[in-house]
């Protein structure tokens, strides 16, 4: 599941239409699972202005939803 989450994140980066407006996108640390739950966590690190950043996060959200995020 962690690998799948990373791949979704990576594909979202590659397909984001305003990628050239973002200076840097990274993940920070490891994807982790909250114990005894269905929650996973990922740290997203972005260098850009706030507007483009918000657009990317919104896009990222739709990409996770599209993947149905259900193994």
């Amino acid at each position, binding site marked *: 599941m962690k690998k799948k989450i990373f791949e979704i994140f990576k594909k979202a980066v590659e397909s984001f239409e305003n990628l050239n407006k973002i*200076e840097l996108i990274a993940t920070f640390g490891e994807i982790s699972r909250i114990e005894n739950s269905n929650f*996973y966590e990922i740290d997203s690190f972005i260098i850009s202005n706030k507007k483009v950043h918000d657009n990317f996060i919104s896009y990222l959200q739709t990409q996770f939803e599209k993947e149905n995020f259900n193994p």
Partner: protein
Amino acid sequence: MIILFLIYKHNLKKKILIHDLNYRNLSDLLMKEWKSVVNNMKYRLKILHGDKNFPNKIPFLKLSGKELLQGIVEWSQKIKSNEEFKIFQKYLVKIIPKLLQDYDYLDLSNLKKIQKLLNKKFAWNKKLEKVKDLLVKF
């Protein structure tokens, strides 16, 4: 600033929490984050877009044992239940080896004692008190 985005649908079994870190540039990052977080970023960023050399541009910030462990000390003082302690203990097990590796110029022998302590089996509240005692000695 950390903004948390919770992405979910009611019919989905899996959910993801995105800890969302946004900066205007390196100076903005250095101004906003704790020194220990900056150092952690230096070693643990995985670049997907942009300057792959960026982590090397982040300065390593020297800090004291007290500065390094401030967040952990504050967290330890807020724990009120076994469940909370389990989460804290899991975090310590994960973070202590990284701290010992990244801050080898500091005397972190008490962290090694905490590591040993966490492997022992006894009441969580007594274990917490011993961990707190060792943390305040930094």
